[in-house]
């Protein structure tokens, strides 16, 4: 029985070591631009119990152009996180999913927490977003976000659905008539974490 317990402990230790190897392999693939292989490595590391890998998986999805999945993988909320580099990738996920308000908030939060290269890119992207959002948004835009929000809620992608809803709220707030704003707020409240 003690032997079995020791075997279990050994297995746990070797799984942790294996997770580190997969993280390193994922880093190498990511650096080489082999993002599909990096994704597999990070996911294996995740399953072996490596901590803090969710952001790497989501960032790799960004590089693969799978923005909707990336937004879902990054999870709910669009406030700045602890790691500005992960926040930058998260902003790119929002940008790719056409969540420009989300991207802007994240890019604003990066500020001088990152290196000069990312800071410069963040400033440039924020300028482009500001230019696009200068006009008053049309009802058709808000309809699109709310329609997508409902679609994603139906298929169980709650983080993405909430992000789309928040985008609709942000756009509606910039219109004089607050087109469908109350409806968007109800949708987002229903998607809050902990709600069924």
């Amino acid at each position, binding site marked *: 029985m003690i032997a079995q317990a020791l075997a279990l402990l050994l297995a746990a230790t070797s799984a942790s070591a294996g997770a580190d190897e997969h993280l*390193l392999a994922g880093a190498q693939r*990511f650096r080489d631009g082999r993002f599909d292989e990096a994704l597999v490595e990070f996911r294996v590391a995740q399953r072996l119990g490596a901590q803090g890998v969710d952001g790497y998986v989501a960032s790799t999805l960004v590089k693969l152009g799978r923005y909707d999945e990336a937004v879902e993988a990054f999870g709910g909320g669009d406030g700045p996180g602890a790691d500005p580099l992960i926040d930058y990738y998260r902003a790119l996920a929002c*940008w790719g999913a*056409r969540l420009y308000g989300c991207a802007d908030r994240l890019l604003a939060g990066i500020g001088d927490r990152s290196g000069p290269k990312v800071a410069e890119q963040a400033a440039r992207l924020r300028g482009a977003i500001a230019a696009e959002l200068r006009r008053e948004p049309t009802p058709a835009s808000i309809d699109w976000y709310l329609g997508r929000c409902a679609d994603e809620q139906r298929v169980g992608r709650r983080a993405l659905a909430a992000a789309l809803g928040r985008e609709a709220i942000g756009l509606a707030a910039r219109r004089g008539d607050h087109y469908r704003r109350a409806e968007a707020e109800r949708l987002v409240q229903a998607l809050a974490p902990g709600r069924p």
Partner: protein
Amino acid sequence: MLTNRLSIAIAAGLMLAGPALADDQDATRTQDQTKARDEASAGIGAQVQDMARAQAKGDGTTGIGDKVSEMAQSHGCDVNGSAECKAHHAVHQALADQAGAPTDRPSLPGEASGAAAEHHAARTRTMDTERAALRHTQRMAAQGQGSEAQAMHRGAGAGGHGMGGGMGGGMGDGTQAAETTRSGDMHHGAMGGTGGTGGTTGPGGMMK
């Protein structure tokens, strides 16, 4: 029976108590080490900020990154020697290296704002096609290998649609994958195939 139960209880106790005792013994030592490490690393943020201020804009962007990396190694990974820490550091370095920016312009949906909107619409259509193809492939796979093998054996062209390869990776090589599938099917001379879904164009190099 009783002996077995006792053995199980002892083993469980060992598993639980071992780490707990070890934690107790290490607690004081860890506190001291943490204190020392905190003192050593407290100034990193300030040092990085000083370096960022000192480095003139346009002077190159790699210097600070290298320094930060060195400092992280000397104050983090190398101090505790953790393989996990080093692995995370390697991933961060890779993420930083590949942190490109989008080349397309932002465009709100529902507004006819030119080529960018059309590009997004095309991408959405492509993703819908991909999902349909995936559903079809899964249904085909669920039908099992046996019936497919029989159909191949008869050589009668069992109505396969050549969908699998047509989906490609969704990253711009889908068309080629579909072509490969088509030629493969023709080579085998059995499934016939109707040309698949044509693969996808993928995100088309949105990132630099």
